[in-house]
């Protein structure tokens, strides 16, 4: 059974604020889900060979032919909740 401390750690890692009630509910729910998925543990390692998942791989485009600077900026900045001129505004980081 996953502990409340572990739930708190995971919430911290995920940057999500949870109330005490939410933490208890999650403890219960995650417990049942983990119990369900645990059945994969019964699959013996011998049955599994290092499998490559299809042909999915990252493809990078050539670092050339950039688009004209600024043509998308307005559309993108329009979506930012906090904006100052051409900057996305955030609270201080350091």
């Amino acid at each position, binding site marked *: 059974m996953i502990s409340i401390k572990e739930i708190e750690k995971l919430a911290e890692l995920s940057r999500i*604020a949870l109330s005490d009630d939410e933490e208890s509910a*999650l403890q219960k729910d995650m417990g049942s*889900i983990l119990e369900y998925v645990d059945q*994969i543990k019964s699959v013996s390692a011998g*049955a599994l060979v290092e*499998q490559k*998942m299809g042909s999915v791989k990252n493809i990078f485009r050539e670092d050339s032919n950039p688009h004209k600077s600024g043509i998308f900026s307005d559309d993108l900045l329009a979506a930012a909740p906090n904006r100052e001129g051409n900057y996305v505004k955030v609270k201080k980081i350091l």
Partner: protein
Amino acid sequence: MKIDLKNLTIAKVRNSFLKGEYSAVDLAKAYLETIKLRNKELNIFLEAYDDVLAQAEAADKIIKSGKAGTLTGIPIALKDNILIKGKHASASSKILENYVGSYDSTAVSKLKEAGAVFIGRTNMDEFAMGSSTETSAFGPTKNPLDVSRVPGGSSGGAAAAVAADMALATLGSDTAGSVRQPASFCGVVGFKPTYGAVSRYGLMAMGSSLDVIGPIGKTVADVATIFNVIKGQDKMDSTSLNVLSKSERLSRPHLRVADLTKFIESIGKGGIDPRIMKNYKESLDKLSKLGYEIKEPKTDLSMIKYSLPAYYIIIPAEVSTNLSRFDGVKYGFWKGGEDLMDDYKKTRGEGFGKEARRRILLGAYVLSSGYYDSYYNKAMAIRGVIEKVFKEVFEEVDFVATPTTPTAAFKIGETTSNPVEMYLAEIFTVIANIGSIPAISLPSGFVEEGKVQLPIGFQLMAPHSEDNLLFKIGGDFMGEVI
């Protein structure tokens, strides 16, 4: 004039347009009228766009000039996680409530080029996580055939829109069954292409290694038409590919369908409605009468039963990664806290619903050091084995058949307390996503509950890239001439 929306198909509409029986504006008005009448009750559309008639007018001009394309004037709706430039898209989440798409998804660009008219965006489970559309931040959608029941999910709005005659066809997305299961619950056709067959550029990412955009419509022909417009390798999606236009298997004297009764009963563990099993056998008989060979496969399919548990390790992992971009900085909902970290925690804590938060934390868990190997890596390895099992079984058959779902549409609120119970709704659909193969759900009958006839679906799966085979068998099963 009164247009009979119930029996429309894309072909019928194109014919009527050519003959001048009605215009694209007439047709768009008819759908908007239905939305006006029933959307408040059913909550299918989050938004009907304000420029539908303008789009239809432009379509009419093209039709009059004799230059009508494949879909000119055809009214289509989009699941709320597919971007169309300048229009809201929120993945039915509070965290994107006011977000406006800054570009067209490739699927939408292609539909635009073909002349489609976009009616609006349909309700879904938040960030596509769910099988009932109950996790939407904007209220559940009701099944048009029985408003006390769910339409399925996560593309519940998209399937319900077709069933309720609010759109001729819709685009949904399918990661574990989210196109096929609601199609089955609503009595319409839902198609999940081979992973990569339709570009994911502009589809809000949930499970990047599993997500596929899929069409929903009333007929196999309509679903095939839409698929053929939106498919194709796209440089904006490195996982996209071109599927076969015509399978070599079609030159066989007859096609073979795997009867999976034994396997179904073993993984269903008594949770399958016996009327659905009866309908499954009847569906196989129907195919047999149409000239398909029904056989019990010799291949050992037992590893396929790990599809759902493997999925519920892989998907939270990918979800926790994909949803980390929602931090109140670049777009979407923002809640201010004491400092930047507090901004993130409050924004995400409040902006995300319960299921999203649950899967994000679960993902963080299965990816954390000490667990990564025994959970995520093992699930991925199991996935590779299941792909291999399907490749093997497709050496002795051309299709694999199952019921689409273990039950018909359940009541709103019935399963939301127990997460695992909800997950089991996708036990037959998820195997196609994990196995990287295309699948289609065909309306195959009804079960009676009280005075209502609830639709049920028959699911067929084909080998990777052989999507066209499903249109052949689907068309035959539905008695359509394609």
